[in-house]
């Protein structure tokens, strides 16, 4: 679990690398144009990913021992 923090790269890939493919209006998702939906989707997913990392992050356990 030492390398769990590497998961932090995923939001960068989703938000930045995929951008040229999602720069369009349709389809609408939840009433949002697709580009806006995509960014919102990754904002939520970023939180989820960090919550998972937090759960398994050995650094947080060290904190408890102190």
């Amino acid at each position: 679990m030492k390398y769990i923090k590497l998961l932090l790269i995923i939001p960068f890939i989703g938000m930045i690398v995929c951008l040229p493919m999602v720069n369009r209006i349709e389809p609408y998702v939840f009433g949002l144009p697709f580009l806006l939906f995509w960014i919102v989707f990754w904002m939520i997913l970023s939180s989820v990913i960090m919550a998972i990392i937090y759960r398994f992050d050995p650094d947080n356990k060290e904190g408890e021992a102190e």
Partner: protein
Amino acid sequence: MNTSLIIIFAFALFALYLGIRSSRGKDINLDEFAVGNKGFGTLFVFLLIAGEVYTTFTFLGGSGWAYSNGAAAFYVPAYICLAYVLSYWLIPKVWRYSKDHHIISQPSYFASFYKSTALGIIVAILGTAALVPYIMIQLKGLGIIVSEASYGAISPAIASTIGAVIVTTYVIISGMHGSAWTAVVKDIMILAVIIFLGLYIPYHYFGGIRPLFEAVQATQPEKLTLADSGFSISWFISTVLLNALGFYLLPNSFSVALTANSEKALRKNAITLPLYTLLLLFAFFIGFAAIVQIPGLQGSEGDLSLLRLSIQTFDPWVIGVVGAAGLLTALVPASVMLNSASIGLTTGIYRVINPNASERKQLLLSKILIVVIVIIALYFAVNGSDALAMLNILSYAIITQLAPGLLFSFSKKPLLNKYGVIAGILAAVAVIFYMSLTGAKIATFFPNVPTFINDISTGMLALILNFIVAICVSLLTKSLVKEKEEEAVLQQSPAQLEETSITK
């Protein structure tokens, strides 16, 4: 005096009262003043970091960008979200080093890590150069919001001045505690106001969110995607990356990170903050609604789209509450910025000139500096200044140039030394000023580059140059640093030498 002005004044007085009261029963020393003695729990740190996001920008710029530039506005939540993702890894490390070395400001962090007072001074100057225009924008925004929301009963200049007096008073009395307590009220207010407006307006005028966007698509479809040039995809990507890096390098964000009482509080915040940033969406809804409802606002008038559309839609008492929320969104960030700019100057420069200054003297100087900075910012907010407006655009580009120095301070074997970091920063800042003053873009030097390269932001180019210079200079001066260290060892007393050899 009309209804909305009375409501705005009531909230202004309440903020002042809360800000002053927050330090009651505490002995405010330099540490308490600057970073709340590194004792704030998850909630306060959360509200203070979120305060950086929900500034007057939410009220004016968020909807204004959507109104004037459409989808380009999405860069804001995108970079803020990625800044939090980055912070999960980055900020606990900064906090740990600062805690171990009793550091309360960004300039001291750099000066301490690279053992260079010169670097500390450079960082203090860059930090102030980035913050003063920001404070100016807050005061100016405050003036515009209060003036509009009071139906012109009070002029922007007077509103800005009153705001400046309030914020200066409680920052001087309570330091960071004042910011934290007013942040509580501010966030409740802005949450309520922005969600209400962001839902009510689309449903009232269009019957829903999707109909709103379809109406925009019918009139101005180009506002819903990124353009082919100008605010293009490569502009978006380079700006988002640059700002995500720069976010925690702004001295005020840096200070707020240091107020935390544990690394865990910082990590927990990183998890929830992207969700909180989703609120910006509601500001965008209002901006897009204004495209259809009140077309024709030109240039910077676009920033008024939220207020103008609200005034057209609601009774004066609602506008009063909106104005009060706008007022608070200016006061809280301005207070944190004032605090960290003055502490940065005190610890980064004054301590170097006068190392034996007592803590009381340093605190007194910080408070005097707050007054000086506020007067400068207020002067330019009222009178307008092209130079400061330009500095504000450059703030992120400038402050992000501290990134190589910060990022390499975490590696086990330090790859950069002080010469490299300083050379990199100076080279990058020179490029930024040159390109902005002359309006040069990459195409100026290489006329044949494709648009997607030409749209890369100036700050990002400077940052790439910065990394290259920093690494090259560090490698070239490696032997120089080693020699100096050896000299230092030779000059030590025999007893100290023995000590070093034992530890080796």
